[in-house]
């Protein structure tokens, strides 16, 4: 049974058709990668799923419920967790408090109940030593980790990761992939937008290719990476 399903979703910004008739479904427990050149509409697709951007046409089903018109808050409560491509921390709050907001609202937990779980997430994401530091003092890499940690604190059924590995060193990337694998192993479904293909392909079962807002391919990673069309689109941008 699919946990997330998009049916013919479209969105235009002015004259720009940023999402065109996109349909796909994500099975419960599946990990799906999304690739495509810059400006292909990948982040917009996430914003449509989370409700930060309203769809012009089409239907979005989450957990068998039509959420096309639901505000972001309700989708989060239902189990959609996301990270932002450009980290959006609560700058004056501490790292721990950032998670506490997510656990308190997104997962409807009391502070007392959330404490241990938030601490555990901080340990898993390697942020526990910075727990009581204001988020504004974090480095870019730590901010990316905070994005992941905060999304996890909302207790998501589906986790949307937006270029979380971009800009990381090889070692950091590997550690992050391990964390994501562990999350996936606990049964959380994942949709992951990423340019770092080897990281992506070591986690996901299927790849979706987006170009000019259209789905131009979806399937097993080796099948997708073998396709001429995808190679053409990707060769110009990525080595």
């Amino acid at each position, binding site marked *: 049974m699919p946990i997330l399903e998009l049916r013919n979703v479209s969105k235009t910004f002015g004259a720009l058709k940023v999402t065109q008739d996109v349909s796909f479904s994500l099975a419960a427990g599946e990990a799906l990668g999304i690739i495509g050149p810059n400006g292909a509409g990948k982040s917009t697709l996430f914003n449509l799923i989370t409700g930060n951007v309203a769809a012009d046409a089409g239907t979005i089903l989450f957990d068998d419920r039509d959420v096309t018109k639901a505000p972001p808050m309700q989708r989060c409560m239902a189990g959609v967790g996301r990270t932002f491509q450009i980290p959006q*921390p*609560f700058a004056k709050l501490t790292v721990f408090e950032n998670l*506490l907001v997510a656990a308190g609202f997104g997962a409807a937990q009391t502070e007392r109940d959330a404490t241990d779980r938030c601490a555990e997430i901080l340990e898993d994401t390697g942020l526990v030593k910075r727990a009581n*530091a204001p988020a504004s003092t974090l480095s870019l890499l730590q901010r990316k980790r905070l994005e992941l940690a905060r999304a996890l*604190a909302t207790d998501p059924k589906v986790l949307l990761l937006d270029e979380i590995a971009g800009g990381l060193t090889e070692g950091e990337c590997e550690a992050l992939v391990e964390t994501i694998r562990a999350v996936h192993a606990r049964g959380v479904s994942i949709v992951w937008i990423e340019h770092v293909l080897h990281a992506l392909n070591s986690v996901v079962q299927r790849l979706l290719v987006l170009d000019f807002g259209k789905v131009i391919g979806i399937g097993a990673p080796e099948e997708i990476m073998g396709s001429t069309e995808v190679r053409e689109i990707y060769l110009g941008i990525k080595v």
Partner: protein
Amino acid sequence: MDAQGPPTRSWSIETRTKASRGFFIAVAFLVALGFLAPLFLARSTVQDLFFILTMLVLAQCWNLLAGYAGLVSVGQQVFVGFGAYAMFACVSLLGLDPISAIFLGGLGAALLSLPTGFFIFRLQGAYFAIGTWVVAEVVRLLLAQWRALGGGTGTSLPNSATRDMWATQFVSELFDMRPAQAMDVLTYWLALVVACLTTGFIYWLLRTRRGLGLAALRDNQEAARAVGVDAARLKWAVYICVSFVTGVCGALIYVQKARISPDAAFSVVDWTAYVIFIVVIGGIGTLEGPIVGVIVFFLLQNALAEYGSWYLLLLGAMGIIIMLFAPRGLWGLFTDRTGIQFFPVRRMLVRRDGHHSKVQGGPNG
């Protein structure tokens, strides 16, 4: 022990700091001293303290509204004026006691906030600010048509109402004061109670889950929505609460003044511009900021009183300088340097064995 038993809690949250413990003892002492103050202070000093306390209430309200909920209103005078007029109507037309009418003034302001909120919540940013001002002007013009309360020129509270006000007789006999002075003492005490309750309420609110949600909203609205914070509901709740307290404060101010006119009661300079100045120079988004701000404002006002319009120019210049060089206000400057905070809202993660993660950077929950 069963290995499958409930997991033991190995982490906990701590919010108190050493400075805060000492501070709460000092506050308790100061409040007690504040209650006794009228016994040994001159009447004019008691009136000054009344002014400081009521401005503090307005400043804490605006700080919660703008500093936390992100609702930058320049029309708070509407609730001061409406609360005051509702009180006047209850006393002059219905013959109620001014003290109970103060509460009804707050209730009136809260009721008014429902239709005004319905209108202004459709606006964003600068349009929201302008909208609040327009609403205030509309309500002022409407009340200026109310002949029974003096229309555009205003009216005074009936002498009998203030003289026979609840407990005035008692205070005047107890301390051997004239009724007018006893009324000043009584309104001062009420202002002290309202200021303590307002500050206490906001402090309590900021330590709850909703308070944390408000702080998240203040820092990043989009992210707050994405982690499940119900932004619209929180903003409405804050707006209505603040309207109530602002209305109570307005009614209290005009019980003390005993004379009202639409221009004075709906003055944007007195009830909003000064209040914004207080919050901004003190430090927006902190509970300590408005307290520091109101003291600085009062000292400036006294020091510059004889310079006429230069006073306003200097006030403006000072506001600009502080915004440029200390955008988080005098309290922000202080707390960045020292790490001291008197109203700790920071939730610190500590291990149960007492091991503390070191705090870095300035505390500013």
